């Protein structure tokens, strides 16, 4: 059934369909309408889950981990400052191998205070060991929320679904809401197997691990992150079988004849689709790649897609101070595998921080600048930044 939903509502619908048993919550703009919608669902009886209001995001994630160890399916939502506050617990969720799902609405980092779209919050959690999936529209948000549980529980790594602040969270789009019976076929109830606090089979989890075993546990995480690449692909295919919509970790458009490929994520990818249509109509040989996964980073697909491409323009709505945009950094690092004549020139653009608009004009500017220069002027090119002459 098609409903007009905001991104946040789509999240709540996805959660309600997914037989989640415990939802610890703490509000933060622009995620709050996710948990408010869930509260309404609980209140009117259409949602059946334990709803626990905690006193901070750190506690929310701690409660998720505890619930998961108690043997139930669990989820929470946050953004920006809330994700930062959870940071310690994100590492813990990974190390304890609890398949917690987190929905993060990409919001800029304070200080100064800014509640609008920026990827800095999620990309700066790259090292925590969470699977990260970025969505470009509300349909993808709802679908990815359901898929997240399946992926997380298969590889036993916590999974983050990411959507853009306000552009998705508060924007209404028509969304096909799956039927509960179909979701049940796709996503069975959570089976913790032996990884839970069973009073009949008492175990202690995550106690002291000295240097003789710790590294092996970390190796296991990496191994399962690698496995996750196949698992994500397989999950996408299964999803298509039942629901008819196919998603990709790396989606290439018009790559075969492109001189320049624009690489985008989130809603920027959505805008990019229209931009390249316009550019191509004007005769430009331009293509695009949308990347969905940041972790595990789809190195092989990127390498394969970019082999022989002359120039790429990576749009980063984030920045790692003292280095470069994170998507650009990831890409530069994997395409090192390519030989010199196969490896594209990477133009890394920083745009849209703190919710500054990235529209068709922005993307066209990016394209023109990439086309004009043989090599990038700098490792990071800041788009539309007003310079103050000292």
């Amino acid at each position, binding site marked *: 059934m098609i409903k007009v939903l905001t991104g946040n509502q789509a999240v709540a619908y996805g959660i309600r369909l997914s037989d989640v048993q415990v939802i610890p919550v703490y509000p933060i703009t622009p995620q709050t309408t996710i948990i408010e919608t869930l509260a309404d669902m609980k209140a009117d009886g259409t949602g059946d889950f334990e709803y626990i209001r905690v006193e901070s995001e750190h506690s929310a994630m701690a409660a998720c981990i505890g619930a998961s160890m108690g043997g139930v399916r669990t989820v929470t939502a946050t953004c920006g400052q809330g994700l930062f506050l959870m940071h310690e617990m994100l590492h813990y969720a990974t*190390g*304890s*191998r609890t398949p917690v799902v987190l929905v993060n609405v990409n919001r800029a980092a304070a200080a100064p205070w800014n509640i609008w779209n920026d990827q800095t919050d999620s990309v700066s959690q790259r090292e925590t060991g969470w699977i990260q999936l970025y969505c470009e529209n509300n349909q993808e948000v709802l679908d990815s929320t359901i898929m997240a549980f399946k992926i997380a529980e298969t590889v*036993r790594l916590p999974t983050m679904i990411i959507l853009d602040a306000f552009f998705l969270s508060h924007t209404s789009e028509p969304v096909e809401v799956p039927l509960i019976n179909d979701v049940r076929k796709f996503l069975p109830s959570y089976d913790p197997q032996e*990884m839970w606090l069973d009073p009949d089979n*008492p*175990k*202690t*989890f*995550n*106690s002291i*691990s000295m240097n003789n*075993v710790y590294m*092996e*546990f970390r*190796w*296991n995480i*990496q*191994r399962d992150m*690698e*496995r996750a*690449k*196949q698992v994500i692909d397989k999950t996408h295919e299964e999803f298509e079988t039942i629901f008819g919509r196919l998603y990709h970790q790396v989606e290439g458009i018009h790559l075969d004849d492109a001189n320049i490929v624009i690489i985008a994520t989130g809603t920027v990818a959505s805008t990019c689709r229209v931009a390249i249509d316009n550019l191509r109509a004007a005769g430009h040989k331009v293509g695009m790649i949308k990347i969905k996964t940041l972790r595990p980073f789809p190195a*092989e697909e990127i390498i394969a897609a970019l082999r022989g491409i002359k120039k790429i323009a990576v749009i980063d709505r984030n920045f790692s101070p003292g280095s470069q945009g994170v998507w650009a950094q990831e890409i530069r690092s994997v395409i090192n595998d390519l030989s010199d004549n196969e490896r594209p020139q990477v133009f890394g653009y920083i745009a849209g921080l703190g919710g500054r608009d990235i529209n068709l004009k922005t993307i066209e500017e990016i394209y023109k600048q990439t086309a004009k220069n043989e090599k990038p002027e700098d490792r990071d090119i800041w788009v539309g930044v007003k310079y103050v002459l000292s």
Partner: protein
Amino acid sequence: MKHTNREVQSTFCAISTTSSLENKTGSWRFAKPVFIDRLAPCNQQCPAGEDIASIMYLAGQGRFEDAWKLIMQANPFPAIMGRVCYHNCETKCNRSNLDNSIAINIVERFIGDYALEHNLKILPQIPDQNQHVAIIGAGPAGLTAAYDLRLKGYQVTVFDANDQPGGLMRYGIPPYRLPNQIIEGEISRLYDIGVLFKQRTYIKDKSDWDRLEHDFNSIFISIGASRMVDPDLKGNSLKRIYHSLSFLKEINQGKRPDIGDKTIIIGGGNSAIDCARVSRRLGAKVTLIYRRTITEMPAYMEEIEMAQTEGVEFIFLAAPEEFLGTDRVKKIKVMKMKQGQPDESGRLQSIPTEETFEINCTSVIISIGETVNTEDLPSFLAFENNSLKTDSNGSTSHAQYFAGGDLIQQPHTVTHAIASGKRAGLAIDQYLSLSNNKHESSKTISFLHKKSPVNEVISYNQLNPFYFINKSRTNSHKISLNERINTFKEVFMSSSQKDVIEESQRCFVCGTCTECGNCYVFCPDFSIKKHPSGFGYHIDLDYCKGCGICVKECPRGAMQMEFAE
């Protein structure tokens, strides 16, 4: 590492199936929590030594019989005391720091009445001894001593000059404060357990005392203060000038002295107020004159207020000078007083001005105090400050003789009298045990698992009031003003069981563990467990790290940290 299938020699993540009990975290400790008993301020205030905090706890649980038994260990007359005790315990109640103090008096009255309604009994547990104790004076002190000693197995005989036992409880306190059937019910227990009463027996001559010394192993004297103080004024032999003691005695005997339609009460104590309120019920207009002001009046404020509501007129800074009249008193000449410096009691002195005035009346009731009638007592007993000299246990200068009540040096209240009776009971028991073979002492019943007592009154800041919700004190209810002025019906009505339970549940039970379980819930090491005996909690010192959370979260301050090791 492309989608590898290589396996590594380890478990999936850190999992342990061995017990963590191996790790005795108690070894990390530098301080440990202990359960203690701190003295609740109400307990400390009660002259009779009632364990009020525990009594409130039991009442709050609806365990009225247990609460009654606990009261009876200190005070055998709860139904009486729930009506006449001046309840100083309430003034020190820690709950007043949160909202209002507990209405301990109301709860005690309910428990006392409950016991009477349900005919509850306590029987002597100790076999009868062949030792005899004489009690002289069947007032609260004598009766308490009699009750205590009888339960310890002694043969007890009470000698009393009046028709009925009860002393001032029966003959001094008017029925609208203390109905007769309550006194009858409470005293009947003494008859039931075998105390012998010899009423209308006046012990006063040397031959009387000699015979007592011969017939009894020990003698407890509690004859009270029965000599009325007279102001010795001109005209004091006129008719219709009464003294409070005899006036109230007649009222309590069912007589109705003739006071006419306008009576003047002289005095400021509770007896004066009693006389005033009784006089209103006899249909008279009543004026009470007192030489100082309301601030210095020794009467209970509650009583003064009720007298005022019942229409008693008060004239302060007024002292009687002369009674005027022929045959019957018709007028009183009163000296106007003014206030000077404080005297030894701390109250401001009253100094006469030169101004006098006169008040018409048809009767006068003098209520300026009573003293001890020393003539009736053995001459070899020492006296001091017009009281029989005793030590803190009630022993006199003579080994065989003990004393208590208004006869000895202590505040003249029923509560203090009961306390002195209880103390003397203990002293006499010890005296008689030493001179003869030991017998087993009666066990005190404990209803709450008392840990080692700490000799310190618990203050409000030692509690954790977070666990208590604000709730106002229950109200007592009075009969209508019309009924009050026109009848001798009991003024205060009974409270309902529901109200009493709710009121008792407001009690913090300061300083005593009630096994609320907070410590058990909060201990992060699962180191607070139910004691194997089933009584109370104990700390598992193998694992207790001494974090002190239990001590902080104990609502009633029944724990403390010890740092010695």
